[in-house]
């Protein structure tokens, strides 16, 4: 493939991720409202919000690290997107799928939050720093079962790449959520924390922390964070679909699969109040850890 096709494919992927992520966000707001017995905003509400934020002036900043914070986040989500296979056969969405593996991806995903945390730190708002410490603590919590699930997959199929694991599913015709169920359970429980819906929304808890790390960011900063957050959630969903649900052959199947897996944290979150930080960490070191160990034992024995 030549460079132009690559670039066009990359842009198409970014647009797809942005649109899907934003729409999902709006649909989640709608669903939440329906569960509350409300009418709720239209599904495209997030687009309106994003456009409005983009149109707002950004009159002030607290220093260049605050400006770089959203940039880090955007870079991290876009670059991560480049490494996640969107469709089984690649095609236009191949991008850099074959140039990195899962461990690389895990670390790349940290790049953005770290930069974002630095940007939040520079604003000097104590709420931002508290939010960041909570987020980092929670990350240590859910990363353990998540990594255990991934390691279980890696040692079961002797590959560390996403494409490798997808090939395994294509070849055998069984989704990994059935052939290594414990890993799937551990990963799904870890996903609850990864998406930061309640009860794990301790980072940006609006009532306690005034939205935490983003509390000093408005206008274009907030727009950037919002859109990279949407792209990031698309990346995570696609990763889950690729790893456990056999990938997707076309966009329709991709949407169905991602949406169905997205409903797990959303529906769990709607009816849950918020945890404290210790409770959140201990949650992940309870049953999820147990299932992670089971997954590794399962993978080691079979």
């Amino acid at each position, binding site marked *: 493939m030549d460079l132009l096709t690559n670039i066009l494919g990359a842009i198409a992927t970014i647009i797809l991720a942005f649109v899907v992520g934003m729409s999902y966000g709006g649909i989640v707001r709608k669903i939440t409202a329906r569960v509350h017995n409300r009418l709720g905003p239209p599904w495209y*509400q997030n687009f309106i919000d994003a456009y409005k934020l983009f149109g707002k002036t950004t009159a002030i900043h607290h220093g260049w690290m605050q400006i770089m914070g959203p940039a880090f986040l955007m870079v991290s989500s876009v670059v991560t997107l480049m490494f996640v296979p969107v469709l089984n056969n690649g095609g236009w969405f191949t991008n850099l799928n074959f140039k990195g593996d899962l461990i690389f991806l895990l670390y790349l995903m940290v790049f953005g939050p770290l930069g974002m945390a630095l940007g939040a730190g520079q604003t000097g708002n104590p709420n931002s720093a508290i939010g960041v410490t909570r987020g980092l603590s929670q990350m240590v919590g859910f990363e353990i079962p998540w990594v255990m699930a991934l390691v279980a997959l890696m040692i079961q199929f002797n590959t560390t790449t996403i494409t490798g694991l997808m090939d395994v599913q294509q070849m055998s015709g069984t989704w990994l959520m059935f052939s290594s169920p414990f890993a799937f359970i551990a990963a799904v429980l870890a996903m609850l924390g990864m998406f930061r819906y309640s009860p794990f929304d301790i980072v940006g808890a609006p009532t306690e922390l005034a*939205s935490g790390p983003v509390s000093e960011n408005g206008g274009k900063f907030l727009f950037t964070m919002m859109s990279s957050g949407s792209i990031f959630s698309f990346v995570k969903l696609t990763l889950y679909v690729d790893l456990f649900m056999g990938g997707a052959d076309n966009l329709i199947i991709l949407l169905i699969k991602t949406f169905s897996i997205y409903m797990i944290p959303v529906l769990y979150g709607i009816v849950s109040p918020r945890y404290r930080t210790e409770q959140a960490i201990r949650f992940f070191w309870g049953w999820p850890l147990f299932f992670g160990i089971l997954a590794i034992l399962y993978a080691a024995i079979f």
Partner: protein
Amino acid sequence: MINDKNSQKIVDIIQNWARKHSIWVLAYGTGCGAIEIPPTMTSRYDAERLGVRGAATPRQADVLLVTGYLTTKTLKRVIRVYEQMQDPKFVIGFGSCTINGGMYYDSYNTIKLLDKYLPVDVYINGCMPRPEAVLAGFGKLQEIIAEGRANGAQKYKDNLEWYKANQKKIIPSLLTTDYNW
């Protein structure tokens, strides 16, 4: 922002449409009016269907909702919050206290007319205004945003000295602002 609807550019129309449908409210719950916000936002009246949503900090907010009376002390904070908000920004005066002092008309430390200190775009009358009235107020705000008439922030910028003089009259220690928008 442009006053006349006919002279709005197409970009402005789109942007105003977006602003109209995405109102992030910073409720400054100074007085008794704060209690009317929860029913407005929750399932009975569901303001979110209009795109109205709470904002946590002034940096993210579009609308400053001053719910009730303002003492000189709280006015100082409200002015600071207003100045921290990013353009375009609107103010809703909520309850009769913000219009004529309400039941605190003869208090030594409660302002009577918010409009002298901050540019109010929409007043919601009542003591207290019920959620229906609040929704009507949001509707009015949406209407004037769409028409491009919600130019309170511009008014504040143009008449900054007048506003500052008024504010300084009752709050002499108000920090000389370092905002120049």
